[in-house]
């Protein structure tokens, strides 16, 4: 996240054996790299706690309003969710490969991996957009237009018998479910968008050969970020999509 940003004017520094990207206040590249990746990890800790607040809320309300959470979860498409999980895991894999290519100085491989990662990111967001779209149409977006009645009298889907309806009071609690659904997946998507912006930046830089001289800390740390976003989804997927599918 941060390593690219730092380049200090070191006019009064005697440059002996310093590589160009060693910043003035570090003694060695190794120290610099470890420092930066430690910083990245700390940043990820703040991210853990950031999502942690929402996970706490989720667990509490899931206990309270279990039927509403089941009903809400059943409106999500398990196919889309599973595909998206696959997409994201694959993008994590391509990202890991990107890091490896960078480490082993394979410029082409790096570019290909990064582009693949970016494409998979777009695929994920595209599928997410389709899902959001459907929620909008069904008035399942919390707020003034939220419609709980569709949970009292659920419509039968093609080929499947209608799910049993919820009593009105419980049906209203699906709004809590969807609040959490949108807050959590929305924050996740926001992180993806930020990540994809950084990816694009990296692709351009990689194409110019920016990572072929050993200064790959940025790629490595971006990799950490991307994997973290993947981990968040690894938890979101079962929590939001897979509640009591057997019912």
């Amino acid at each position, binding site marked *: 996240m941060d390593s690219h940003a730092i380049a200090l004017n070191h006019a009064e520094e005697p440059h002996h054996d310093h590589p160009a990207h060693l910043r003035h206040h570090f*003694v*060695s590249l*190794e*120290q610099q*790299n*470890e420092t930066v*990746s*430690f910083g990245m*990890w*700390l940043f*990820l*800790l703040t991210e*853990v*706690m950031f999502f*942690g*607040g929402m*996970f*706490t809320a989720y*667990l*509490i309300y899931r*206990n309270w309003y279990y039927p509403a959470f089941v009903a809400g979860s059943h409106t999500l498409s*398990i196919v889309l969710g*599973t595909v998206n*999980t*696959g997409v994201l*895991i*694959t993008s*994590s*894999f391509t*990202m*890991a*490969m990107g890091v*490896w290519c960078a*480490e*082993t100085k394979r410029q082409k491989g790096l570019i290909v991996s990064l582009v693949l990662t970016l494409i998979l990111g777009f695929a994920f967001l595209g599928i997410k957009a389709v899902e959001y779209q459907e929620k909008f149409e069904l008035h399942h977006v919390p707020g003034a237009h939220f419609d709980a009645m569709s949970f009292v009298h659920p419509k039968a889907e093609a080929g499947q018998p209608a799910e049993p309806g919820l009593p009105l009071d419980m049906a209203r609690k699906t709004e809590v479910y969807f609040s959490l659904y949108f807050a959590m997946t929305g924050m996740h998507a926001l992180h993806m968008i930020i990540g994809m912006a950084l990816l694009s930046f990296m692709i351009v830089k990689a194409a110019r050969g920016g990572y072929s001289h050993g200064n790959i800390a940025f790629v*490595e740390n971006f*990799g*950490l970020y991307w*994997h*973290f976003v*993947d*981990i968040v989804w*690894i*938890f979101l*997927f*079962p*929590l939001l999509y*897979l*509640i*009591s*599918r*057997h019912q």
Partner: protein
Amino acid sequence: MSHPVSDHEEAHGPHIVSPKIYLLVFLALLIGTTLTVVASYLELGPWNPIIALGIAVAKATLVVLFFMHIKYSSKLMKLTVVSGIFTFLALVGMSMSDYISRAWGSF
């Protein structure tokens, strides 16, 4: 020039994980995903969420250990990860302790 003391124990270069391991982890993650989806269709009572979360934890661990290189990192990094998990659990656990114990007594 003297080297600063930091907490890194031994000074070997960054460990490069081989693509083979990445591929294995990737496959394991895909299998894990399939397993959770399948498990959610089975009637397992209270075990459903536990299994779902268990698989998620396992998957996350794989990502952290291999994709994020923690297995090959210094003690400090491992400690950092653990402290993050610890604080997260403190938030969730201590909050839940209020909600769960409300049912015991007058509240």
